[in-house]
């Protein structure tokens, strides 16, 4: 939705605001810009100008080659995609159902149960490692992608988001469907779920981004190299304790990992923002 320009008449305040905005954006983009340049900079362990943002060199793909060589990237991508989408698929189910229940149904102790859900957000990860690994092992999911996903199958954040989304959907739609003869599950799947899509997209972004970039938990659960995810592959050359400073390779590797998300966001950012708009978070 295009909004008319509210600072159309140039005045000092507007200019000041514009300047501040530019400054912020500059600060925000600099590390990224550097990363982009460093990724293409030939290995340079001598100069003082490693931080230079001026591409005064012949770009090279060596850094990417080296990063790619450090791990089986196609497999890592595949595993990561599986984890993200698998998690999301289950989450969307659980979160939609629960979100609907909290938004629309009347039952006793609703508030209390809801806060019980929110508890999930507050837990700190390090304390969960051992108990969850024990549970995962008992379920026979140790060293499997399913084991990586399982703890996230319920999502308090998602339930919250979907609850807000459902609340913004006019009751008329439901009542129309009821009169038209919908059973309650037809109501949920054929009317509410399609209407709640923005909320799902918004949640999808949050969920995929966080699982795409997750490191510690996959590292704990997965043992077979065939089951490892991108961040683990990336860590093998960014986190060495005694390692020297291969900034170029690190930058290239980071790009490799972040590129799909970045591309997706750049392409669909309007839809993303809109999905947050309609998701009832406002």
């Amino acid at each position, binding site marked *: 939705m295009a909004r008319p320009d509210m600072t159309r008449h140039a005045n000092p305040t507007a200019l000041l605001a514009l300047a501040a905005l530019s400054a912020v954006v500059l600060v925000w983009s600099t590390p990224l810009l550097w990363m982009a340049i460093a990724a293409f900079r030939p290995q340079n362990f001598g100069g003082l100008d490693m931080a230079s943002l001026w591409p005064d060199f012949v770009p090279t793909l060596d850094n990417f080659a080296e990063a790619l*060589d450090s791990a089986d990237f196609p497999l890592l991508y595949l595993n990561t995609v599986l984890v993200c989408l698998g998690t999301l698929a289950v989450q969307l189910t659980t979160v939609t159902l629960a979100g609907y229940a909290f938004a629309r149904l009347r039952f006793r102790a609703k508030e209390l149960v809801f806060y019980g859900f929110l508890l999930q957000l507050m837990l700190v990860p390090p304390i969960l490692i051992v108990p969850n690994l024990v549970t995962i092992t008992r379920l026979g999911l140790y060293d499997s992608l399913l084991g990586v996903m399982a703890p996230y199958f319920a999502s308090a954040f998602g339930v919250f988001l979907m609850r807000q989304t459902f609340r913004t959907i006019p009751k008329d739609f439901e009542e129309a469907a009821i009169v038209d003869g919908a059973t309650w599950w037809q109501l949920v799947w054929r009317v509410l779920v399609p209407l709640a899509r923005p909320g799902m997209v918004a949640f999808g972004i949050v969920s995929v981004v966080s699982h795409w970039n997750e490191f510690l938990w996959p590292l704990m659960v997965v043992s*077979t*190299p065939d089951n490892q995810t991108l961040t*683990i592959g990336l860590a*093998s050359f960014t986190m060495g304790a005694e390692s020297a400073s291969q900034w170029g390779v690190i930058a290239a590797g980071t790009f490799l990992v972040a590129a799909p998300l970045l591309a997706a966001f750049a392409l669909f950012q309007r839809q993303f923002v809109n999905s947050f708009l309609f998701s009832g978070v406002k």
Partner: protein
Amino acid sequence: ATDIEMFFPVPVEGKLAKEMKNLMDRFNAEHPDIKATAVYTGSYDETNIKTRAAIKAGRPPAAVIMSANFVLEYQINGEIQPLDPLIQADGQTPDAFMGKFWPALHGNARFAGKVWAAPFHNSTPLLYFNADHFKAAGLDPNNPPKTWAEWVDAAKKLTVRDGDTVKRYGLMLPGNYDYLGWVMTALTMSNGGLYYNPEFGGEVFYDTPSMLGALTLVDNMAHKYKVMPDGVTDGKAVSTAFFAGQASMVVLSTGSLSFIRQNMKDNYGVAFVPRNLRNAVAIGGASLIMPKGLSDERRQASWTLIKWLTSPEISGHWSRFTGYFAPNKGAYELPEMKTFIAENPDAKVALDQLQYAQSWFATYNTVAVRKALEDEVQAVIAGKKKPAEALKAAQAKADDIMRPYVEQTALNLPN
């Protein structure tokens, strides 16, 4: 075939992970009845967490390449098994088994009367210096500083100033946790000290003259001579500064050797960590351990793998690839290794220093006890505290952390 998995961290470079996989393929080819998988498990710390979590979850790995100074705690907590029975089953004595490794490595592998680990790759701190800077400052790169006095002198000469701002530091020491403790151990030992009681996991020697001297040296470098940056410098920052010619001398692990060798543009040299009273450093690196709770079959397969990985040939191969030194003395008898040493005299320096190396710091709650000192040393480096008060505080804190253990052991007196 028996499936076994081995956890391994990558302490240096991404390439290692790949090479480890090659090694495993080779092992599996040579041992058709065993299928070993090398599992990359992050840094040393993460490997530690994962190992423990896996043990708690009832899925212990068959072998782990574990930071050598964590081994003691696994033994204290009863989570690993001694290797003695396996050694003996091979018709060997533990003495003979350990005898294959450099003596400096024994302390962190064999204690409390048993063999708990097999050294896999090891390191010591080394002094790296920029030979070009040496020449420019009128120093002889072939005769690097050997004593603290020469060291200070060299550092002063190498430091380049522009008014009040320093353009180039004469010396940089890694000051992040873990690295700092290791460097301090080296300095204390070089000052005649011990740092901790290698025979008992409940005692550290922080508040001692030898440590005070070492810390005072560091303090002076930073604040009196101003040849070293004020405040903590991360290990990675140190190596970057060294590459960039911003630091003329640095203390880094021998593990960085091959990387520096391959990428350094300026001429460089390596030397022993300078001494005050004696030449001495602590070893670093990792050993192979075997968690408890393995089936006989897996235990045997794991043992086969451990022996294979620590054999002279593999040990030497890995050493050449990584820059760590090979713990197995036999490795250096092999022709490839001899050629390698001849071609890379800097590797020889590391090896030579090994003669003077001692065990690595390991106590009950190693990390916390070490951190007790490191926090205080960092405060000194940052100019927040004086060495004497810092060491008192460190000692008190460390004693406090170790108290439960001490009370159950050394102070658990018969009534």
